[in-house]
């Protein structure tokens, strides 16, 4: 994918604190269009916090976040989503009471215009819009091969399929930037291969920029263009998979050298 003017996402010196705990400490990161960036690090390093602050769920107490060149540090989550950012969650956050189809359709909510009075009447613009979006969502369902479970309530699916549905929901929003929080956690080898294939396809076909948190080093090394490593809220390395693999600080963090 051709690189646009400047990086898609710039995180600049961002710190997040919860009371006395500094979850993120002056973290800076750039993500360029079309890249697949992996964010790795030991548990508690602040990876999910980083995604949360990019989503607008937490506000940093210092630092800036720029999306597409514009400062969006103080935006609320729905506004951030409107800018073109979609994500999946560490503990699958599907809407358990709705079917798979409805869950994915919620991903389209930002694209759906309309007034509730028109919805109340149904026949006319509301119905047309609904069918258009349904057609789009069906393409995603085909793409991720989940046709058979369309009408199943999301709460009843096995974990691996739930993760896939969550991915579908994120894709439904046609995001510019896709944030995936441990998309392969708890999957077996086959499921992981499938997921990798989907992620690569999404990046190839739709040009979506992807940032993912992942623990499986094999996956990380295979599919990412760049890797950022977090430890105790700080970024300790940033480069290509090969560079990071050989970085001393990274090795220390993973092998557990004591820090002061």
């Amino acid at each position, binding site marked *: 994918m051709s690189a646009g003017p400047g990086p898609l996402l710039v995180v600049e010196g961002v710190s997040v604190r919860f009371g006395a705990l500094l979850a993120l400490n002056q973290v800076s990161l750039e993500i360029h269009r079309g890249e697949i960036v992996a964010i790795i690090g030991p548990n508690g390093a602040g990876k999910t916090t980083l995604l949360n602050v990019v*989503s*607008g*769920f937490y506000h940093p107490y210092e630092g800036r976040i720029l999306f597409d060149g514009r400062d969006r540090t103080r935006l*609320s*989550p*729905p506004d*951030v*989503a*409107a800018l073109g950012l*979609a*994500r999946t*969650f560490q503990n699958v*956050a*599907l*809407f*358990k*009471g*709705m079917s798979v189809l*409805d869950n994915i*359709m*919620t*991903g389209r*909510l*930002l694209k*759906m215009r*309309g007034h*509730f009075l028109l*919805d*109340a*009447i*149904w026949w006319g613009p*509301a*119905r047309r*819009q*609904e*069918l258009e979006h*349904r*057609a789009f969502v*069906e393409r995603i369902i085909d793409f991720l091969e989940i046709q058979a479970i369309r009408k199943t309530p999301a709460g009843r699916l096995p974990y691996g399929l739930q993760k896939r549905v969550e991915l579908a*929901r*994120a894709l439904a*929003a046609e995001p510019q930037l896709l944030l995936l929080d441990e998309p392969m956690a708890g999957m077996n080898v086959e499921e992981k291969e499938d997921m990798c294939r989907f992620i690569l396809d999404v990046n190839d076909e739709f040009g979506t920029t992807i940032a993912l948190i992942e623990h499986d080093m094999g996956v990380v090394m295979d599919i990412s263009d760049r890797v950022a490593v977090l430890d105790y809220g700080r970024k300790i390395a940033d480069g290509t998979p090969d560079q990071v693999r050989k970085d001393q600080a990274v090795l220390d963090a993973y092998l557990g050298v004591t820090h002061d």
Partner: protein
Amino acid sequence: MIYREAGQFKTTYASDQAIFPIVQDRVFVALFALAAFVAVPLVANEYWLQAVLIPFLIYALAAIGLNLLTGYAGQLSLGTGGFMAVGAYAAFKLTTAFPALNILIVFPLAGLVAAGVGLVFGIPSLRIKGFYLAVATLAAQFFLIWLFNKVPWFVNYASSGTITAPPRSLFGVMLTGPQATAGVRYLVALSMVVVFALVAKNLVRGRVGRSWMAIRDRDIAAEIIGVRPMRTKLLAFGISSFYCGIAGAEFVFLYLGSAETLAFDIGLSFLVLFMVIIGGLGSVLGSFLGAAFIVLVPIFLTNAPHTLGFNLPVALQKQIELMVFGGLIIFFLIVEPRGLARLWQITKEKLRLWPFPH
């Protein structure tokens, strides 16, 4: 064998999204509608209309309203009685101030007033969740009832403190007031509830319903994927109160004839909540089933001892009714917490397979 979908392929998304996708369902509903609109007013006797069917239809409307708020949007509300009262008193003030205004327009207007009040009392939902929100709605309930009690303007300074539905007609047919026949009032209530049930179904199967359910199931994730909580919750409160307001107006104008605030007290709020829970949270059909259950059980309990040959003293009967009612609620919640609507779904699934067991 009869209730089978085999051979009915849905070739368009439109047919998949329809309210009644299966032909058998459509036929059944058409027959049912025919029976309800035509057969019942001709055949049913006064008692059944007045004591069972009319209140059932009105409660069903209120239950749909509450279900939209609590079942679909996940906002627990114990203020239903208060909002119904707003609708009733608003309708009363409107029709006495503008007697020429068609009563069928007064009802939705009263609903709008109730919607406005609902919006105001829904504002705390932006900060408060779950049980705590229930307390906010209780504040609404108690405050509104107190207000209607204290301020004589609401009852047009009547010394009795009650509001009475003045006679109103449409095309020469009396709709409200002592001259209005039970059959006519039944048809009005039926038409209203059918129209608004359809509207509710349209809302919940589309964009609005999904944003409500997203907030209900995981409000934080919903926000992150772009659902705006304030707009969504307030819409739920507004629409729900609209429905409850109309139901309240109908309660006085089509059923009771006249009422005082006691009719709308906290007991009513709990009654409608029972209907929604027993019928099924998050189901329009469930609201009907729950309303039917709540209306029929006391009638059954009152009449059963007679038919079985006993004759119990009134006080004892009331006490047993209370116990059976409470017991039934617990029983239901244990057996099927998702309500009658779920039981109905299970029945349909079994019907599909009949006569095979699985």
